[in-house]
């Protein structure tokens, strides 16, 4: 039995016409001799009656001051995919094909019990195989599973977190030893840049698992990185295709499998959409600097703040925080007094931004009572708000001499202020003002993808 997993996202199933187009693709696969296992997301996006965000908002609207229990939130969110699954299975039946709808739990997807972001532990695919052997098309609700049952009760429904339906598709592909997993979306494959910024961005015919995971982590929304990582772990070929065209799409595979295929030197240019705030702590060249850095990291950890772009210098520490956590970070830092040494030899007081806040001034006044008893050193914190990251994904090039120079020259010549850089085996990234993002994507795409200027280096 040649099992083919086909996943359709929310925009592919958001109207009767779109569902029919999706169903015809499934039927074609069935007619071509495959045993299709269909994974669907909830119908539509925010505002649509059964979209995940709509269901979340409905629950929260009961009393915005009382956060819903994560277990109940998972139950609520799972409804969107279950509705979509039943609707798709029924659509296939109305078109003359026997189909069965399964929840994640009924499909045998077992997860840990981290509600809202559960990890798929194992899949018992007997039910799916049973229906496939009976000639049915199996439609499985994406984004959900059931937690391991340790107490003998009926297991709880869990959801898999962002990109959960892609994860479901890859996980089922692995468990069923599928010939391939096809992810259907509203673009015709993995592009060299966001087509909203670069309308003529190319569709890549083939890309490695590592590269697609990297572009997904760096902001591209075409495929969730967890899905790529599962496919890589189990070596399942993954296709990204468009629901509404018959274009071949992009094959995601291992670098070894792609041997003989011309994998691009530059995969593309990505940008993250969420804003970030970059902080530069001017600690000074003091012996206490490592201790202050450690205390700052502990403080951020206690507040559950994710940090990016960590950077040290002889007198500063810098990192970025998500924009939506900035008010919390600011309230923690402004006027903060941190002792260093055991017993304390010096106090460090943090001043956030250019203008001293009331909190800072109050703390400073209180410290003045200490007089000469213990030295107090100010740590100005420079704040760069509304920044975002643009990345060049170039696994074959990122360690080539001169690539960083060309990357920076391209940005500088376009008048773009580069606030910080980061580099890895897979990519070069820069932190820029949000207002420069589109320009940065354009010039980097022009230089590295269209002109392929690096070839002359």
């Amino acid at each position: 039995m040649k099992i083919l997993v086909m996943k359709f996202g929310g925009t592919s199933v958001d109207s009767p016409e779109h569902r029919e187009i999706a169903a015809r693709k499934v039927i074609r696969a069935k007619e071509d001799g495959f045993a299709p296992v269909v994974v669907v997301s909830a119908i539509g996006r925010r505002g649509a009656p059964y979209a995940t965000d709509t269901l979340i908002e409905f629950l929260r609207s009961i009393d915005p001051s009382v956060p819903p229990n994560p277990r109940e939130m998972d139950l609520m969110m799972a409804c969107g995919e279950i509705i979509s699954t039943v609707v798709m299975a029924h659509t296939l039946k109305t078109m003359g094909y026997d189909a069965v709808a399964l929840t994640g739990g009924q499909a045998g997807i077992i997860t840990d019990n981290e509600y809202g972001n559960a990890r798929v532990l194992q899949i018992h695919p007997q039910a799916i195989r049973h229906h496939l052997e009976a000639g049915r098309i199996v439609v499985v609700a994406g984004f959900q599973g059931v937690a391991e049952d340790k107490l003998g009760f009926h297991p709880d429904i869990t959801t898999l977190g962002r990109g959960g339906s892609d994860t479901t598709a890859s996980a089922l592909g692995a468990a069923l030893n599928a010939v391939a997993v096809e992810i259907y979306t509203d673009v015709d494959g993995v592009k060299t840049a966001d087509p909203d910024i670069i309308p003529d961005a190319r569709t890549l015919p083939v890309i490695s698992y590592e590269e697609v995971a990297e572009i997904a982590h760096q902001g591209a929304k075409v495929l969730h990185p967890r899905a790529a990582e599962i496919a890589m772990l189990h070596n399942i070929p993954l296709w990204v295709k468009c629901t509404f065209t018959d274009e071949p799409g992009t094959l995601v595979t291992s670098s070894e499998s792609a041997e003989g295929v011309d994998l691009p030197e530059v995969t593309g240019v990505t940008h993250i959409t969420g804003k970030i705030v970059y902080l530069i702590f001017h600690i000074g060249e003091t012996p206490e600097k490592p201790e202050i850095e450690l205390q700052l990291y502990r403080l951020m950890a206690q507040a559950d703040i994710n940090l990016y772009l960590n950077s040290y210098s002889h007198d500063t520490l810098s990192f970025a925080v998500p924009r939506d956590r900035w008010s919390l970070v600011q309230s923690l830092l402004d006027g903060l007094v941190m002792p260093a040494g055991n017993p304390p030899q010096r106090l460090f007081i943090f001043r956030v931004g250019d203008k001293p806040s009331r909190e800072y001034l109050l703390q400073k006044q209180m410290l003045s009572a200490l007089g000469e008893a213990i030295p107090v050193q100010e740590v100005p914190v420079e704040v760069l708000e509304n920044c975002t990251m643009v990345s060049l994904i170039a696994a074959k090039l990122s360690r080539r001499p001169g690539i960083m120079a060309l990357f920076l020259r391209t940005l500088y010549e376009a008048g773009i202020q580069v606030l910080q850089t980061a580099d890895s085996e897979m990519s070069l990234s820069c932190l820029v003002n949000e207002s420069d993002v589109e320009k940065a994507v354009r010039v980097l795409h022009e230089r590295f993808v269209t002109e392929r200027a690096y070839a002359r280096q």
Partner: protein
Amino acid sequence: MYEHLPQPRGRRFFIEQERGVTDVRVEIGLAHVRVRAGSGEKGLQNHLKVLETIAEQGVNVSLVKIHHDWITFAVSQADVPRITHCLDSLGLDHKIVPNLALVITVAANMRESAGIMAQIAESLWEADAHIIETGDSHDTVQCLVPEERAFAAAQSLRRRFQLGEVVR
């Protein structure tokens, strides 16, 4: 409903990789270079001059960071004589710290793991490995530390994240 169907036997087969830190690695033989580039337009031109001159020598750089008046990066220890020659010829004030190593902590989805940097910094502090520079990607945090403390740092990280002992 499906209890009559055969259940899987044998070893548990995990579909997704484990979350959290999965490995700690050490790369030795590195040096850290700090060049005073100045600020403003002159600073930008000096960034390019430094990186392009070094590239012409075929030297690869990593952990490139831009600071107010400085640009910093890491190079292979073996490239230090060529770097020194390049920077001397450009007439730019610079400082090179030799005998460093990169301690690389590998984890799935590092950027969504709040607190991981605190745990890494604590482990290195306990190992008396002073951090000279860091870099991070979605699946790694790289810390440049004195080579003489790198293996102690790796051991400390492995203990904290309950991994096996480091192989020297």
